């Protein structure tokens, strides 16, 4: 079937800025995605100084499920945490895919890239006796990829490994590309971790209509275009000066350390884990999608300060 962005939006019954990924469950959209993904676009997912949290988060995608993503939409040629192969067998599969689909595969990068000690703070494989570092790998594959999706704040902005004093010289994908003159487009999907919808949604957008509109930080406006504080269900409390002083109190959470007033993301409507809860309802926003958040927004909590 022919399927346009207009149909998509109509189906979702939402404004262009408000496409809810939960609507991806609609059979017509699943069909369109499968069609757009005819031949299953190859994806190579590599991991640097990460915690695997972004991968765990994408496993939590509801619509489509991760099984649908893996079996119907993409072809995951390399992902350390899920692939059957180990060692050289795994690295050979990666090399084969990168060669066969040069200029066509999508590279997903999770985790930051350490530059000190010649990259040896992140050794990710051994091929014929030679150690591969994340630094070498991201340059080698980055050059060949159609586009790079940097997932998680480590990959998009350096994240926790780059927090002061950044002992390993950890950098983001964009920083590494800039320093090495690599021009492959990079889409940043920050978050610690990113919401699964942001990752799957970015991928769906790339497959259906190409690279989505990005903001100055390289983030899809679709997901990172609204200020949490402006849309927060507790905003009324803020206006009336009612502030929670301890966790469990009613009121705006700003005095507990909430970073909603500075954070751009759509958690306020999308929520987390199938919509059961989200950070501000449960505690506070820690600003995890923002550049430099570990240092700029420290300390995280303000409550019970002596």
């Amino acid at each position, binding site marked *: 079937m022919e399927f346009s962005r207009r149909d998509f939006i109509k189906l979702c019954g939402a404004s262009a800025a408000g496409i809810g990924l939960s609507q991806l469950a609609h059979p017509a959209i699943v069909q369109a995605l499968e069609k757009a993904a005819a031949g299953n676009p190859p994806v190579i997912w590599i*991991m640097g*100084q990460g*915690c*695997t*949290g972004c991968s*765990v988060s994408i*496993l*939590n995608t509801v619509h489509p*499920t991760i*099984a649908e993503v893996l*079996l119907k939409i993409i072809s*995951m040629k*390399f992902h*350390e*945490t*899920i*692939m*059957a*192969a*180990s*060692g*050289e*067998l*795994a*690295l*050979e*599969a990666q090399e084969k895919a990168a060669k066969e689909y040069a200029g066509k595969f999508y590279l997903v990068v999770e985790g930051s890239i350490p530059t000190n*000690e010649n990259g040896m*703070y*992140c*050794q*990710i494989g*051994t091929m014929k*006796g030679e150690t591969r570092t994340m630094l070498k790998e991201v340059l080698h594959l980055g050059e060949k990829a159609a586009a790079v999706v940097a997932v998680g704040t480590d990959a998009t902005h350096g*994240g*926790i*490994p780059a*927090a002061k*004093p950044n*002992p*390993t010289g950890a950098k983001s994908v964009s920083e590494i590309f800039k320093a090495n003159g690599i021009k492959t487009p990079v889409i940043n999907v920050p978050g610690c971790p990113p919401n699964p919808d942001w990752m799957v949604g970015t991928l769906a957008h790339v497959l259906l209509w190409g690279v989505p509109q990005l903001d100055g930080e390289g983030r899809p406006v679709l997901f990172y275009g609204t200020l949490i504080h402006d849309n927060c269900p507790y905003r009324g409390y803020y206006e009336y000066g009612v502030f929670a002083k301890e*966790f*469990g109190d009613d009121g705006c959470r700003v005095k507990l350390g909430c970073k909603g007033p500075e954070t751009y993301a759509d958690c306020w409507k999308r929520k*987390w*884990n199938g919509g*059961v*809860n*989200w*950070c501000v*309802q*449960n*505690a*506070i926003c820690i600003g995890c999608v923002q550049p430099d958040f570990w240092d700029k927004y*420290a*300390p*995280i*909590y303000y409550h*019970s*300060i*002596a």
Partner: protein
Amino acid sequence: MATCFGPSGGKEAAPAAKAPAAAAAAGPKKIVVDPVTRIEGHLKVEVTVAEGKVVEARTTGGMFRGFEIILRGRDPRDASQITQRICGVCPTEHCQASVYALDDAFGVKPPTNGRHVRNLIHASNYVSSHILHFYHLAALDYVKGPDTAPFIPRYEGPDFYRLPKDVNDAAVAQYVKGLDMRRKAQEALAIFGGRMPHVQGVVVGGTTEKPTAEQIVQYVWIMKEVQQFVQETYVPTVYAVAGAYKDLFAVGTGCKNLLSTGVFPMDDDNKTHLFKRGVYTDGKDYPLDPMQIREQVKYSWYDDSCTNKQPFDGCTIPKYGKSGAYSFVKAPRYNGKPHEVGPLARMWITDPPVSGAAKKFLGVPADSKATFRALGDKAFSVMGRHAARAEECAIVADKCIEWALQLKPGGDTIKSAPVPDSAKGMGLNEAARGSVSHWIVIKNKKIDNYQVVSPTLWNASPRDDSGVPGPIEQALIGTPVADPENPINVVRVIRAFDP
């Protein structure tokens, strides 16, 4: 008696399994598997194979981020957020270890409701993590997946995937179902934890949100489905797989020293636990004395001045390229000896009654009072570790329902306390994959020192200062490897630890 061998090595920790005839002729051969995939993080293993069996093994943790350095000088309360980022598969476990250390340092005790909420958050992740480990990390070593990436390529060899077709097909269907179940367990977790991975709800003094009746019901409803999957599908499938791989009850013995720092506090003083604190060294049970934990770094890429320190006095000065060293993992030792941590250690030390599926497997009557130690030496093996994990998962899934129903809707979950000027705190906890302890020293209301002893340090440690290999390195000795190009048993041994 102790089977941990000394610096001279040589003693085989595992009984000899049948070596395929083809391998007998080959001389010693070095095999490198890097990356060892389907684990959390980056791990390399180097083994020497002679006459079809592993005779020497080295594990290398190839990543360093410097959490302990980054934590210094920060607000102590931020530690529970920062340390979650050590592991995205077990963030709740690091978070919990961190808040236990902070509770200890701040001198604060969460209300009973807060203890229950913390336990529920933690327990839901145990269940999610164990399902993920068996079905999505380990199973592809036994189950033939669909012939499409990422399930191919895979190691190939005669007998590698020997499940009867119907069992294999069922296991593939369960792979998909298991993805749903681990996701649902995380959704249940997020009802109280805010989101997952990386929970918001657990802080020093308790938890952040008072549970509502609606949340409790929603939690129980979701976890009932997961509990049913664990009892009726996961546990029996583990024994079905084990039945086809009986030889793997004699592979991967390891050091046979076990340690558990205790998990799921059953009282508000954090004194008694669902899974007990304790150690099992050289065949005997002892109480745990946390002051006997030392981290050694002779073979790790850290400055030698940091070696053999109790974690309160520990330090982390990276020194990549240090002569003789081969890993970023430190070597924690208890009373100077390597100890395995994880479900096997917890189940052995606590020794609870086993499931009906286990009794059937052991050939004892359904109404017998068999406990985990009835497995005997079989427990210390690749399949023994999978069985321990499944048994434990069933126990914890039951507790999720029980504890949720003990919550008081709207009841307080937190007790606040000011940041102390200076204090020390110890946080002992057990991640799904093993003991995790956090150690904090506060000066001038800031973190002066913070040390983390994680499960992978215990299990995947390199040699210690006396040259004694770590638990995984020891477990690999004797592992049959028929074909050096397809060393499937090597990765089976490693993955059974869930590093």
